[in-house]
């Protein structure tokens, strides 16, 4: 058999996988951001869920269970032979928090993408990661035609802890997305050190 670049002979140790989440409101550019740095085109995976009355109309007396499909887009960056990084775009709808719980478990942290024209759309993501203690940074996606705000204005508008890094970002640009991810990992590293010391 011909072992290509990322194939390994049977018996070789498998790499470890880690993940970073890309969160934010619907249409803010999460999948674009994943695609900007992923070595594959973004893939889509689906969970089929049986809804037990979460945020749906009261159907008392109706026995049929409803199933919903939650789609997540993700990408992959092979860091080394031992380490693979996955980037997951979180599902946009708030009622799928239980999917978020699975995604957030073990994640290094999250990039929350914000659009200054619809800043409130990223509040649920920020609340969620604050509540969980998941390290996150806020990346303000610079949409064309959107009014530019200063970072401290965004920080104030989001009522963020001053420790939380905020940066401007273009989700289409690889370099820009790289910077956002590096800033997140550095931030997560600081939090880890602080938790150890504390």
């Amino acid at each position, binding site marked *: *058999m011909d072992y290509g670049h990322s194939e390994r002979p049977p018996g070789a140790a*498998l790499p*470890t996988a880690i993940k970073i989440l890309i969160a934010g409101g619907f249409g803010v550019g999460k999948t674009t951001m994943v695609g900007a740095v992923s070595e594959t085109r973004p893939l889509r995976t689906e969970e089929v869920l049986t809804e037990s009355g979460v945020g749906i109309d009261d159907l008392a007396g109706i026995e049929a269970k409803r199933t919903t*499909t939650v789609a997540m887009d993700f990408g992959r960056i092979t860091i080394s032979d031992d*380490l*693979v990084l996955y980037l997951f775009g979180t599902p946009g709808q708030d009622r799928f928090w239980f999917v978020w719980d699975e995604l957030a478990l*073990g994640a290094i942290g999250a990039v929350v993408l914000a659009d200054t024209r619809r800043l409130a759309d990223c509040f649920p993501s920020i609340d969620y990661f604050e509540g969980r203690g998941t390290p996150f940074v806020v990346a303000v996606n610079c949409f064309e035609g959107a009014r530019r705000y200063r970072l401290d204005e965004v920080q104030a508008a989001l009522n963020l802890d001053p420790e939380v890094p905020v940066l401007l970002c273009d989700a289409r640009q690889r370099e820009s997305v*790289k910077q956002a991810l590096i800033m997140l990992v550095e931030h*997560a590293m600081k939090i880890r050190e602080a938790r150890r010391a504390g």
Partner: protein
Amino acid sequence: MTGQGDAVGHQWIDDHAGPVVRPYAVTGGRARPVTGRFDLISLVTATRGDVPAEVGLGPEHLAIVGLCQRVQSVAEIAAHLDLPVGTVRVLLGDLVARNLVRIREPHPTVELPEYSIFEAVINGLRAL
């Protein structure tokens, strides 16, 4: 499908129609794997290049073994086979039970990773 009027029936079945076989049919009605937890980013590799015809294995099992000649995450397997993650977990459980794939669970979830992992990720991202 009824077997009659296939020529007519087929015009309704294209990529947009979604899978013709329901996910539960692929797993024989099972919702949980016989073994294992299978995180979305658990990594899977096949233990052998080909699989002998064996009772209880379906085409989807064989497709997973084929895909996992290269290391793949559970999420990637689901995406490439266009199956829900829950279905893929059940199929992986069957394959683990038969020693046809090996699994590497992701980094322990209780704590943030080791310093060395952070450093590797930062360096890897810079090198992109």
